[in-house]
């Protein structure tokens, strides 16, 4: 890795005139042809496929499912797995700020102007993209409780136990909400400083110990806070960190550029997966469904 000072004084070699071509005709020709191809392709597409036009807007008839435009369905997908403030605003804002900040963090001028400029760039890209796609899909399947349905069906189908149902002791592992509803929070109480802390884990009493004043209840709703905020945010921060550590262990990461390649590719994987799932795999009530089973009802 070239040090920052060395990179700063390094200058571009003298212009190599003999390696240059004239913009007219060499570049203008390519631009013209590509514009022509796109014009024709879009014209053909428009002649064959009509833009959708449903019934006139009616505030009293809600389609089920209601969906945002496809390019925001990744955010709408996030909305199903965490607090709306995180999914709709905070996560996209942070993602865009981090995206814009990449060049201010990865300042090494090495490897610019060529595709996948570092030694392990190809592997990092493929690994980041594939692993992120797989893990995101698995998380969505898990939060959609499909593992519960599949386990029950397999055990019943094999004739092992025709009445098999997901065990109550594993209710907390049904989906993300399971952490909220499947754990007996009320029986986990303990006392600190004379107060029964987290009496029902919904409202945390805040008071001054040793005084007789009734404690003020902080309506934190810890279980919901855990399932809708702590776990999703820990996942979104933790997985990229694990990715970087794993690839470092494999010896694939040597520069910041490598980390950027890994995380950006993983981001593209997550972006695509959530967009596709949100667009094609969400039916009524935003339940996971195969695309051919999705019907839009108006209610």
């Amino acid at each position: 890795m070239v040090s920052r000072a060395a990179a700063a004084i390094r200058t571009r070699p003298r212009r190599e005139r003999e390696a240059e071509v004239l913009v007219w005709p060499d570049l203008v020709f390519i631009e013209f042809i590509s514009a022509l191809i796109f014009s024709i392709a879009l014209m053909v597409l428009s002649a064959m496929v009509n833009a959708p036009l449903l019934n006139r807007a009616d505030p009293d008839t809600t389609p089920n499912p209601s969906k945002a435009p496809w390019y925001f369905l990744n955010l709408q997908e996030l909305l199903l797995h965490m607090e709306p403030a995180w999914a709709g605003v905070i996560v996209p804002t942070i993602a865009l700020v981090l995206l814009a900040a990449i060049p201010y963090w990865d300042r090494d001028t090495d490897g610019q102007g060529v595709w996948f400029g570092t030694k392990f760039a190809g592997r990092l890209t493929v690994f980041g993209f594939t692993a992120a796609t797989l893990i995101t899909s698995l998380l969505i399947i898990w939060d959609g409780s499909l593992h519960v349905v599949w386990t029950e069906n397999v055990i019943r189908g094999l004739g092992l136990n025709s009445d098999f149902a997901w065990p109550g002791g594993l209710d907390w592992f049904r989906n993300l909400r399971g952490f909220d509803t499947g754990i007996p929070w009320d029986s986990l109480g303990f006392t600190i400083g004379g107060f029964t802390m987290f009496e029902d884990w919904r409202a945390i009493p805040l008071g001054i110990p040793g005084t007789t004043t009734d404690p003020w209840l902080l309506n934190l709703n810890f279980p919901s806070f855990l399932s809708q905020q702590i776990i999703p945010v820990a996942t979104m921060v933790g997985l990229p960190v694990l990715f970087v550590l794993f690839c470092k262990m494999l010896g694939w990461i040597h520069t910041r550029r490598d980390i950027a390649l890994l995380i950006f590719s993983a981001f593209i994987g997550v972006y695509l997966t959530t967009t596709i799932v949100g667009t094609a795999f969400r039916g009524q009530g935003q339940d996971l469904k195969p695309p051919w089973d999705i019907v839009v009802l108006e209610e």
Partner: protein
Amino acid sequence: MANLERAPRKSINDLIYDLIFKNYVWQSIFRTGYPNTPRNQMLAVATNVFLHLHPTRIHRTHVKITHTYCLGGLSFFMFLGLTVTGVLLMFYYVPSVERAYQDIQALEANVRFGQLLRNMHRWMAHAMIILVLLHMMRVFYTGAYKPPREFNWVVGVVLFILTLLLSFTGYLLPWDQLAFWAITVGTTMVGSAPVLGDESKFLLLGGFSVGPNALIRFYTLHVIGLPLVISIFMAVHFWRVRRDGGLARPL
């Protein structure tokens, strides 16, 4: 050695050539003559207001399709196409709750090529988003955001956001169920912001729910507000590509 005693007779081709490209009117428009010599080719680019976005010469590697896949240029081309089809659509469309939907129906049924016009506008809008995303990936994977191009990458991120906003504001205009509920879902997400969420949503909709005020706001942003802003950012973006030394190249 050339025969210096007598000029060769002009062929018919030369006569036609002179007639078209060397007459007074042509030369008043294109000062440089037909670009068939290196000098004229460079002048054709440098003296043309549209072409002078380009340098007159570029490095051999940059005209390879696989280096850029023309993605940035095609994004801009989509913007131009959307402007043209958008202006035509404005002839037939009135942004009022009473008229919007029936105007779209009438456009599709009564206007010659009206359906095609609307289709072109919609598919180009989708294409532009995809192209902008792919362009961003191209720039990232070729390391073209690295110094001295840091700021232009930031401008690019802003352009991506503006592209999404342009598409989102246009989505409401047909005033059908798809439009209405997509915007309802989208603006509800805005409303969930921890700070100024409800305020931003109210500002965007001009009310608490999607209605006539929202339609006129989205329309105004879609046809003039955001296009002006994105044009400014595009101007900066293209200017900076040139100022920062053209396309990125290994040092």
